């Protein structure tokens, strides 16, 4: 009898635990907001949220911040579960995949209804988030590649100005390469190295983006020259093997003549390189003014239960008032024209060199490259870059590497189109 009582009690307890919790009645005015590795702006965000709540009483805002390595995996699992954050901050081209597969809300109707919103932003940067004629994101913060150059090493090599062509770039790099010093370094994550090829007239894909177009004699020549320059030490090998920290760290070590990187690198390099000041560091556009954008934008998840509220929120945070505060706080550009103007003015007093760096981000924005709106961008990168790496590091001939790259890229394209 006693054993039966214990069993019955245990079963009742297990059943009680197994009964699903009554779902919390979700506040119909709750907004979840996911950002990409920007937890340092907590104080600013708290003020933004308070301001938004004062204009939208009864709204609860739940803010989540994830590191770049964690966010995509987190967001995908939330999408599958149907509990994706209402507003999401996405970097680079990852948004295209979500947009193409119905994960993001098309913002075009909102922009058509409120045309004054689109007018706030730099049109070239805003157009970065268009896919099949629809706009899916608003700019949060923007950057593109530029050329930093070490004025001291330039002077030692008797060079007076930054290179204007690819030939000059390689020549200058060779002149500066002596002993431990190398002449040129580029970041290689995403498509940041692509301007080196674009400035030579090379296209990655055909205009219909259905086939590889890069396997040309010109591309082979460029690869051979890059390989030769890497082998001789004119180009630092970390250009092709390092990620973000190593190349920037190497430039901060005052042994590299030129760095091809985005504006965000400036603050990292400045923090590490005590040699950096207006007299020792120059900034310029890469030859041909070609640049790869690396932007962050705000999108709205399609699964949101409050699309209008989410839209109001992203308008709020990208609006001139808070974009200006953000630009000043984080020393970056937001894509909001008025905010960026104010941000630059502010920065000029505090860090004129930093302001010069950011100014380059607003110039020649009609020369973006390396930003194809393809849902399978990650697969394409993985198919293309390892072969380029093999070629520039001398592990394969340029011809063999291009053949293998073309095969791999065409495979990705045929699988996905």
């Amino acid at each position: 009898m006693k054993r039966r009582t214990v069993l019955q009690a245990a079963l009742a307890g297990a059943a009680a635990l197994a009964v699903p919790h009554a779902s919390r009645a979700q506040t119909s005015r709750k907004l979840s907001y996911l950002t990409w590795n920007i937890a340092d702006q907590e104080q600013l965000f708290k003020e933004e949220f308070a301001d938004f709540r004062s204009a939208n009483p009864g709204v609860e805002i739940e803010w989540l911040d994830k590191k770049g390595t964690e966010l995509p995996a987190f967001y995908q699992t939330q999408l599958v579960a149907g509990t994706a954050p209402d507003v999401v901050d996405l970097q680079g081209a990852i948004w295209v995949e979500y947009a193409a597969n119905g994960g993001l809300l098309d913002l075009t109707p909102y922009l058509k209804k409120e045309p004054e919103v689109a007018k706030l932003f730099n049109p070239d940067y805003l157009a970065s988030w268009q896919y099949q004629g629809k706009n899916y994101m608003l700019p949060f913060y923007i950057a593109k590649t530029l050329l930093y150059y070490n004025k001291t090493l330039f002077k030692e090599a008797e060079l007076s100005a930054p290179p204007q062509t690819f030939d000059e770039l390689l020549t200058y790099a060779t002149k500066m390469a002596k002993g431990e010093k190398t002449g040129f370094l580029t970041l290689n994550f995403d498509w940041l190295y692509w301007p080196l090829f674009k400035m030579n007239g090379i296209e990655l894909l055909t205009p219909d983006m259905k086939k590889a177009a890069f396997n040309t004699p010109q591309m082979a020549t460029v690869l051979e020259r890059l390989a030769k320059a890497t082998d001789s030490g004119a180009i630092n090998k970390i250009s092709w093997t390092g990620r973000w920290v190593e190349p920037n760290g190497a430039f901060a070590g005052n042994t590299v003549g030129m760095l091809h990187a985005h504006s965000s690198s400036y603050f990292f390099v400045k923090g590490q390189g005590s040699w950096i000041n207006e007299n020792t560091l120059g900034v310029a556009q890469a030859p041909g003014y070609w640049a790869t954008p690396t932007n962050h934008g705000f999108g709205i998840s399609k699964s949101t239960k409050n699309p209008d509220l989410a839209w109001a929120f992203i308008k709020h945070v990208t609006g001139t008032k808070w974009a200006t505060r953000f630009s000043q706080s984080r020393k970056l550009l937001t894509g909001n024209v008025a905010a960026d103007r104010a941000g630059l003015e502010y920065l000029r007093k505090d860090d004129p060199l930093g302001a010069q760096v950011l100014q380059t981000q607003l110039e020649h924005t009609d020369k973006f490259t390396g930003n194809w709106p393809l849902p399978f961008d990650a697969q394409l990168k993985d198919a293309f870059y390892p072969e380029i790496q093999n070629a520039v590091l001398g592990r394969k001939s340029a011809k063999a590497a291009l053949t293998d790259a073309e095969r791999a890229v065409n495979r990705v394209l045929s699988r996905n189109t």
Partner: protein
Amino acid sequence: MAVVPAVAHRPPFLARKRTRQAVLVWCFLAPSLAIFLLYRIIPLLWNVALSFANWSPLRTMRWAGVDQYEEMLHDDVFWQALWNTLLFIASAPVGIVIALGLALLVSSEIRGRDIYRTIIFISYPLMTVAVAIIWRWLFDERVGLINYVARSFHLVDRPIQFLNSFVWALPSVIVANIWQMLGFYMIILLTGLQNIPPSLYEAAAIDGANARRRFWRITVPLLKPSLFLCIVIGMLNSFTSFDLVYVMTGGGPGRATELLVTYIYKLGFSQTRFDYAAAVTIVFFVLLVAIAWMANRLSGGNAGAVETD
């Protein structure tokens, strides 16, 4: 008057003692079994199904037959990752040999041997991420201790880009892995050494066997169970060294340190190709089972069995 024998009355099913005992056992097993089913069996079956389909978190599932497995045949990265994984597994015996040497040293009558044991073992309980970060700094080209020492002793003219070199990256990661596992191997082998009766060595010494013969004829054969345990655990650890590789090199440069386990992660979470990642996982699983089966056969065939007299 004839006596009518009483008809044996069998209690109802649920009232029987054996039934009640069985129900009790199942009640206690049920939670663990439920967790095992939910987190092991169902995901495994789902994984198998996914490997024959086209699916992503944002698309509905479609049957794909053996397309994903066919893709593997043409995937250079898969073969590179498989090769790297096999090399990683093959490095386990190197660590075991080093650990055996250390175990022999700390089992001898040297002063401070307890301290040495502690120092050697201390690497094992460390979090793998911490180990990876430590070794990343040690191998760093600009500020790493290894390059600093090498240059101080004029062993090299220029710093070696350990983790950015196609040649050095995988060996560097293997060194970090061996360092972490040394403590564990040493403890297992030390226990095995301490279970060898000293009388065997005495008898062998009396018979004229030198140290080398005693080692190969007594120590090694009697350490066989411990050695096999180390080999199996070492290989399984090598198979699943995701965190070490991910933090140290991310699988790079190129694919120089890509293992199957890191490749599967990237396929799923960077390229959103969960279907293809599932197929690679199945191959990974088959390889793991094959190695475990081989190890079991080599160690006598009944590893894990409860032996009764």
